Structure formats: structure tokens, C-alpha cells
């Protein structure tokens, strides 16, 4: 029997980036807010201090900061005709857990999407004709435009202290920045990070090939910064322990380093960690959320009533809670009906590993940060004419090698034995003179009718709830896109003077065991039509108006950028809609 807690104005499920942003905005508006987080509380000095923040075995190999699959997992299959099996070790993505969520262990690559990304269906149809898109591709417009999101991108970048070079300020193209980006209202709050040797050479080679390289926008600080909430960050030390690690010296933007210190000072905010929300409760009409049920580590069940529910967990968990709570109609790919679970996407990542003459090139790859590097955007989105190529989509590409960590940084030329004396010799010879750019080609993944999330018919979690089933494969469009981009990427390394360039194309079938990124998107998408989207343009549930669902689960398809900037901008956008409109007149903000 669940014990009932006193009512709150707002209950927030998951205290990562979006939960923290929404909690701050609504507490700032005077509402009584509680956040419920499945994982533990985390602080810099107590949980990932410099004394062991750079423990590659602990964090990179043993996954300390992630959800443990023994707590909960998903099942996976490529095709609808297959039987899905549970994931028992994380591979293609790393589900976050704990306060700060993925914001603790991200690389801090802080991008904006292109203006055309938000009106993708309309844009591509107008430029290439409806027949150009593959028949089973289900891309949609977002219902929100870049111009509407611009102030909210700006807020997040100034919250984080993003280090970068603007490419377009109010329509004026800025030298050294990304000329393809949408117009921004002002420069980044901090100058770009310094670039190490190899990254600088890549930029030079790209420029010589006629591209316009620019430094990757980074949430790692190029200098000390105090954000508008008064919270301070220190300068990055370029230690190269960002992705999958917490930053030990307050240099990487995270909820802990930008927003939580200000949030926890608010007397009308409380947080409950180590508590897993199991259900969003709705009243008899099914049209109003009454709060949430959650279970603590003792196994005791509690009910937290609230007037407004904000679902801000990781993509798959957002979809899972909607499905398990019966909110919104579940997607059925056969009938092509329902919305919850549809348009699930990931990313199309590939790499080019280049080997240079050790006598001439010493790259010191360990000097790096998570969002270091020089990039080009000529082949992203619809920045180039896709007509001759027969595919849509694209991505940024760059030499964005984030580290030279010893366990994983062992690039050796193809043909080298995978162990033994010859392998060791090759590692030693190439460690300083090879470039393994990481997510070098950061391609989009568009949505398809047969790529989706639903509830698994067989496997259940510890509360006897069905696991979420992932059905995902690559389609020809993405494979073609990746081939084209990877070849273009390799040309730049050749121009840098590599003696050997090894292309690692992304190929089908989608491999759940190989890491790409943690950028799972979709499943509870925003849009303009309740028949094809779970949320309206303000991330408000079409079905339950006092429920807002934040995160990349709202993306109708994934663009060729890291998603966090857009995820956070959408959270500010939704918070603004709640503060400006919803609170004055609680109810459906859009009449569809």
C-alpha cells in the first residue's frame, strides 16, 4: 500500500539537465517543486574528485556513473520479425543515472541545430520533391522554429559558459565560426578552447581544401566563468577525462556546476534521490495526472500528488513511463497508428583512423577535452545539395579526439596482430602519431516506420513491469549518407599528410554492442498533429495537459549534431510556456 505524501505544485521525474532547468524555472516562479531521481546524489568533490576522477578502469571500463543493467535494462532487436533479447552490458549508448544525469558524464559538445532541421519535412519536400524521401521515412516538422528557440539556446549557452566562436551574429557571418549556423543573438559567453597540435593541423588542412573549419562549441571552460545564476566554473585543464567521467575541477558544465547550487538554495525546492518513479498516476478521466508513484531503496512505495507533472528522464524511460501509465496511444507500426514509441532514432557515427610518420608528427593526444577540436559543417543537414547523391541528412565532421587515455587509445594500422609483441610494438610506435577522432563523422539518423519503442512481451523488470523493447536498424539512406561523409572526412586527413588512412564506415545492421553516442531520440515526439506526435510544440502531452515531457524523446528525428544544446533549449522553451501561459490558465496550450 503506497503511503501518500503531501501535495506539491510540481513533481519532476529525473534530475538531469532538463529536470534541473525546469525545477529552477518553476521554483523561481514561486511553485513548490519536488524532483524525484532514481539514482544517487552526486557532488564534484565527494563523488569524482581529482584524486580518482581520471580512473579509466573505474569509469570507462566499469561504467560507474551509468545505470546498472542489473537494475533495469531494455530488450533489443533489429527487425520486427525477430525476437528481442535483453541488453546485459551497455554498448551502443550509456543510460545515465543519478543527479545530473548525462550532464555529469557528457563531453559537453554544445551545438545548436540548423534552422532547416526544425522544419525538415517541409524543407526537404520543397527543395527535392516529396518523391525524393524514402517511402518508409517518417520525418516531420517539429512545430517549433529555430528563431523561436534562439533565446533559449542562448540562455543555456550562458548558463554553461559555452566556449566557442560565433559564425553568425544576427545575420552577419563571422570569420572563424560556423557560417552555416542559424543567426545567434550574441557571441558565445567564452572564447573557444585552445586547440592541440593535431586538431590545429586538421583545421589548416580543411581550410586548404576550401572548407570553413571552426572550433567545436564546448561546455569545457576556456577561462573562469560566473553564470547568470552566480555559479562559477574554473578553467579546463585539458586532462582528457570528460566523456563517461565527472569533471573533478569544476571545469565542465553540468547541472552540478551551473544550476544545482542555485537551485538547492531555494526553500521551495526539494529533491529525493535513490527513488524510482514507477508510474504517473492519472484520474478516472485519463486526462489529468494526479502525481506519481515511486519506490525507495527499502522497497517502500510512495505516492507524490502534484498539480503538474514534468517527465524529464532519459529518452527510453520517458517513453516507458508513458506506456506503463497508459498516457497517449501506443504506436503500432503495422497499423501505423498511435504515437508513443514512434520515430525513435539514434545517430550515424563513423570514424577515420589516420597514421602519420612518428618522426614528423607528435600529437600528444592526451592533451584534450571532451569538446575539443576543429569541425566543418559543409556536409551537415541540408547545407549541401543532396540531389545528386540520393540520400538526405548529414552531419558535422571534425578532428574531435577527446583523449589519449591509455586503455582505450591503442590505434594500430590494419593488419597488426590484435595481441602480443607485434601489437605492443605497433601501439608504442603509433600512440603519439595516430589520430582517432572519436565521433569524427557525427551523422544524422532520420526516422522510419519500423524503428520504434514498445513494451516487451516477455521480459520484465524488478517491479514486474515489461521492459522497453527497442526495434532499430539502419536504412539505406543513412548508410549512403555515412559513406559519402566518411569519404569526405578521410580526404582531410590525407591532406594533413597521413601516410595511412583507415575508414571505419557505419554499416547495417545496427550493432547494439558498439558504442556510437548516448543520443537516443524520439519515441515521445513533439509536433503539430496529435495523430503523429505525443506532445504539442510546448512539449505538453496532447492527452494529459498537466504533463510535460522533456528531453530528446521529443525529437521527431535526429540531426547531425550532439543533442544537448537543443534538449536544454527545448526545456527552457517549455518552462517559458508554463510560466507565461500555462500557470495563468492551466490546460491545453494548443487546440488541435
Amino acid at each position, binding site marked *: 500500500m503506497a503511503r501518500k505524501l503531501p501535495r506539491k505544485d510540481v513533481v519532476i521525474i529525473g534530475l538531469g539537465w532538463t529536470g534541473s532547468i525546469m525545477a529552477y524555472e518553476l521554483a523561481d516562479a514561486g511553485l513548490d517543486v519536488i524532483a524525484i531521481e532514481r539514482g544517487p546524489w552526486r*557532488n*564534484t*568533490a*565527494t563523488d569524482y*574528485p*581529482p*584524486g580518482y576522477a581520471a580512473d579509466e578502469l573505474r569509469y570507462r571500463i566499469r561504467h560507474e556513473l551509468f545505470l546498472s543493467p542489473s537494475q533495469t535494462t531494455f530488450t533489443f532487436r533489429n527487425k520486427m520479425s525477430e525476437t528481442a533479447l535483453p541488453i546485459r552490458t551497455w554498448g551502443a549508448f550509456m543510460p545515465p543515472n543519478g543527479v545530473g544525469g548525462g550532464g555529469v558524464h557528457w563531453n559537453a559538445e554544445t551545438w545548436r541545430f540548423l534552422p532547416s532541421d526544425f522544419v525538415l519535412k517541409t524543407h526537404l519536400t520543397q527543395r527535392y520533391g516529396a518523391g525524393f524521401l524514402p517511402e518508409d521515412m517518417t520525418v516531420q516538422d517539429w512545430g517549433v522554429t529555430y528563431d523561436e528557440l534562439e533565446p533559449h539556446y542562448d540562455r543555456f549557452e550562458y548558463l554553461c559558459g559555452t566556449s566557442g566562436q560565433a559564425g553568425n551574429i544576427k545575420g552577419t557571418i563571422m570569420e572563424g565560426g560556423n557560417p552555416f549556423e542559424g543567426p545567434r543573438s550574441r557571441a558565445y559567453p567564452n572564447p573557444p578552447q585552445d586547440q592541440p597540435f593535431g586538431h590545429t593541423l586538421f583545421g589548416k588542412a580543411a581550410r586548404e581544401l576550401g572548407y570553413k573549419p571552426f572550433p567545436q562549441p564546448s561546455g569545457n571552460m576556456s577561462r*573562469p566563468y*560566473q553564470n547568470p*545564476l*552566480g*555559479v*562559477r*566554473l*574554473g*578553467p579546463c*585543464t585539458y*586532462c582528457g577525462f570528460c566523456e563517461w567521467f565527472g569533471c*573533478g*575541477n*569544476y571545469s565542465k558544465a553540468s547541472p552540478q556546476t551551473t544550476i544545482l*547550487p*542555485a537551485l538547492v*538554495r531555494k526553500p521551495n525546492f526539494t529533491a529525493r534521490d535513490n527513488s524510482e518513479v514507477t508510474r504517473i498516476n492519472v484520474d478516472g478521466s485519463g486526462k489529468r495526472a494526479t502525481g506519481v508513484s515511486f519506490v525507495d531503496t527499502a522497497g517502500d512505495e510512495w505516492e507524490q500528488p502534484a498539480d503538474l507533472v514534468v517527465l524529464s528522464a532519459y529518452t527510453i524511460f520517458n517513453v516507458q513511463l508513458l506506456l506503463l501509465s497508459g498516457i497517449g496511444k501506443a504506436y503500432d507500426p503495422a497499423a501505423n497508428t498511435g504515437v508513443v514509441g514512434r520515430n525513435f532514432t539514434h545517430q550515424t557515427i563513423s570514424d577515420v583512423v589516420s597514421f602519420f610518420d612518428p618522426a614528423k608528427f607528435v600529437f600528444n593526444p592526451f592533451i584534450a577535452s571532451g569538446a575539443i577540436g576543429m569541425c566543418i559543417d559543409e556536409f551537415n543537414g541540408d547545407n549541401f545539395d543532396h540531389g545528386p547523391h540520393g540520400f538526405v541528412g548529414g552531419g558535422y565532421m571534425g578532428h574531435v579526439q577527446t583523449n589519449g587515455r591509455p586503455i582505450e587509445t591503442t590505434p594500430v594500422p590494419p593488419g597488426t596482430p590484435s595481441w602480443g609483441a607485434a601489437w605492443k610494438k605497433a601501439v608504442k610506435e603509433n600512440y603519439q602519431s595516430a589520430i582517432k577522432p572519436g565521433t569524427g563523422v557525427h551523422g544524422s539518423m532520420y526516422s522510419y516506420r519500423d524503428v520504434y519503442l514498445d513494451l516487451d512481451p516477455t521480459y520484465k523488470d524488478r517491479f514486474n513491469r515489461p521492459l522497453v523493447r527497442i526495434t532499430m536498424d539502419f536504412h539505406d539512406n543513412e548508410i549512403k549518407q555515412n559513406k559519402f561523409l566518411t569519404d569526405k572526412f578521410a580526404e582531410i586527413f590525407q591532406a594533413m599528410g597521413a601516410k595511412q588512412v583507415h575508414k571505419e564506415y557505419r554499416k547495417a545492421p545496427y550493432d547494439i554492442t558498439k558504442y556510437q553516442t548516448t543520443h537516443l531520440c524520439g519515441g515521445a515526439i513533439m509536433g503539430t498533429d496529435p495523430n503523429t506526435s505525443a506532445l504539442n510544440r510546448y512539449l505538453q502531452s496532447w492527452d494529459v495537459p498537466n504533463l510535460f515531457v522533456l528531453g530528446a524523446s521529443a525529437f521527431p528525428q535526429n540531426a547531425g549534431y550532439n543533442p544537448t544544446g537543443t534538449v536544454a533549449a527545448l526545456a527552457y522553451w517549455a518552462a517559458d510556456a508554463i510560466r507565461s501561459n500555462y500557470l495563468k490558465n492551466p490546460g491545453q496550450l494548443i487546440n488541435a
Partner: protein
Amino acid sequence: MRRAAQFAFVMLTFAVGVSKAMSADVQNFAAVERGRYLAAAADCGSCHTVPGSDHPFSGGRPIETPFGVLVAPNITPDRETGIGAWTDEEFDAAARKGMRRDGKRLYPAMPFPYFARMTQEDVKDIRAYLSTVEPVHNSVAANQLPFPLNQRMAMTVWDKLYFKPGEFMEQRNKSKQWNRGAYLVEGPGHCGACHTPKTVLGGDKSDKPLQGYTLQGWVAPDITSGQGPLAEWSADDLAQYLKTGHNRFAAAAGLMGEVVELSTSRLSDDDTKAMAAYLKDVSGPKAAADSSADAHVMAAGGAIYQDLCSACHKSDGSGVPNLIPNLAHAATVNTGDPTTVLRVILQGAQSVATDKEPTGPAMPAFGWQLNDVQVAAVATYVRNHWGKAPPVSADQAKKERAALDARTN
């Protein structure tokens, strides 16, 4: 006529009786507001509220003294266990003279030698404010000292030696700001209660004001200017530290973190600037330079420093303004007594978060990672590389580790 006079007389005594038992100032909004502010300036809550308690001023916090533990009493208006039944005069006698209601004497853990400098009106307004807080029934056995220290009679002698009654006297040759700062520092702020060296009997060494003392496991460093350790701090640096807990040199943690959180961050900018102006005018002696650190120890300490400390404090010790202390200028690092530097290396430290500086960065613990020899080496390095504070021995590190293991706070 006679009857009428009698009636008037009765009314008068009744009125006087009421005013004696209950502060008339409770009806005075301005007095209560002033009292609230002055209670913050006097940092009453630091001792009289258990940290994190929802019942401010209800007492029960153990106060560690060199002589044993005293427990701060309940000063809520509860009539039985608090001070609700006290008259204003009784409250004033306790605050400014160290005299209890029963005529016995208070121990100087209650900083009445400082509060004696306060005006009667200020103390009365604090009383007015305290009369408005929630009365809490909480009986506190304040005196838990061993015999013979538990005999309050002894305090009669102590008072004769160390207690100098008398309100603060303005110095006419000094500015208004200086006088305000002096009043706050010497009176309600009772800065010297921690920062002034003590005699074996726990009285202030009045010839060495604010020149540093060690208590409750922390160093309250020498905060004098002139040739003293704060010589390079400007008045603005000092005021910023008091107001926000942070400045370009240092961060408040431990006891001073509490003082900033509960007291100085709640003062007006004018008042923290006044305190800074006065403190900048207090000169102290130059710290004795000590160049006896062993070169091998310095080399080992420097290596540990670059490995573990430089990511935040920078290779040159300069840190990050308002975030990471500058080790060359942080008074607790370069002071003669290494207690705080050892404690912070071993145990870590949480700096204070304030409205103006909400970050509250923390120093991680290294006691699990470094042995006593290593702790001593890195402590010696940070004290002796940029400054010339005395080296620290492994034995001192060992003792500090044991002391921290024994501590409950």
C-alpha cells in the same frame, strides 16, 4: 480621591510588572527588525541553534572549549526552558555582564566580554526579536564541565582578570565608518573570541588582538594587516569575503564558513565594508620566516602538489578567484599553526555557499590516498614554497589524522 489614587497606583505597578516580564519592544516593528539584524551580526544562531534544526535558538549545540564541552542554552521565549520569563534587564545582564538570572556567572563561551561593548538598546532589540521566535520547550544542561571547572564561582576570579565592562567608545579622530566597523568587530561580531590568542585560563591576550588562535580543530588565523597576513588584502577583498565567503584569495569553510553563512553574509554592504575598514587598520607583527624545510621534502611535496592539487589550485598556487583559493595568500595556509591545512588535506572542506556566491565549491579529501609522510610533504610545500611558514612533520600529520578520527564534526 484617595481611592482613585490607589487605583492609579495599582495600575502603574501592574503596567510596570508587565513591562518587566515581557518586552514592550515586541510591539515595536522597528526594534524587532533591528534585533533580527543584530542577532545575525552577533551570530547568536551559530551556537544557540543546532545546525540544520528547524527550531532556531532552541539550544542544545555542544560548544567545544579547551576546558570541556558546554552546551548552548535555549534562548527561545519558552517560559520554562527558554528565556521567556526573563526581564529585559536580566537578559542584558547575561549578554553584557555574564551574569545569570540566578546571580551566578556565565562561562565566556558566551562572548559577554565582547557583547559588553554593545549598547543597551542594541541588546534590548535583540531581546525584542528573540521574543518573537517560536518558543521551543527544550531543557538544556549547559554545564557539562568536570570538577572543579563546573564550579561557576571560579568565574568570579576570571571576570576580575579578563572581563572589562563598558560600552564601545567612539574614537573621534577616526571616521564614522571606522567606528561602525570597530563597534561590529569588537562588539556583536566578537571576532576576537576566535581570532585573538588566549591565555591558559582562556582569557584574551589583549596585547595581541586578532593575531590568531586555534580552536575546535580549526585555525582562526591572524587577521591583522600592516605587516600581518592580510597585508595584501584590500578592504574590498575583506568586505567581499565577509559578505560572500569568497574572494580572489580565499574561501571560508569550517567555523568561518558558519560565521559567513549565519552572520556576515546577512549584514549590509555598508557594515561589511565598515568591518573591513576597521580590520585593515589593525596592524600585527610580521610572521617569522622559516626556511628550515628539507629540500627532499619540498621536492616530494611539489611532485604531489603537481599531481593532485594543481588541477584546481594551478601550478603556481594562484587558484581561481572566488572559486579555488590562492595558496600563496590564503591566511589559513601560511599561518604558523598547520592545523587547518592538515585538516583540509586529510578531510577536505566544504566552502560556504551564499546568495552572492552560491557555488560552494568543495576541496576533496586526500587522507585516504596520502600517508602521513606524503601529507606532511605536500603541506610543507604549500606553506613553504610561496610563503615561508614552518614545515610540517609526519608526526604532526599523524596526530591531526588521529584527532580528526576522534572528532564527531
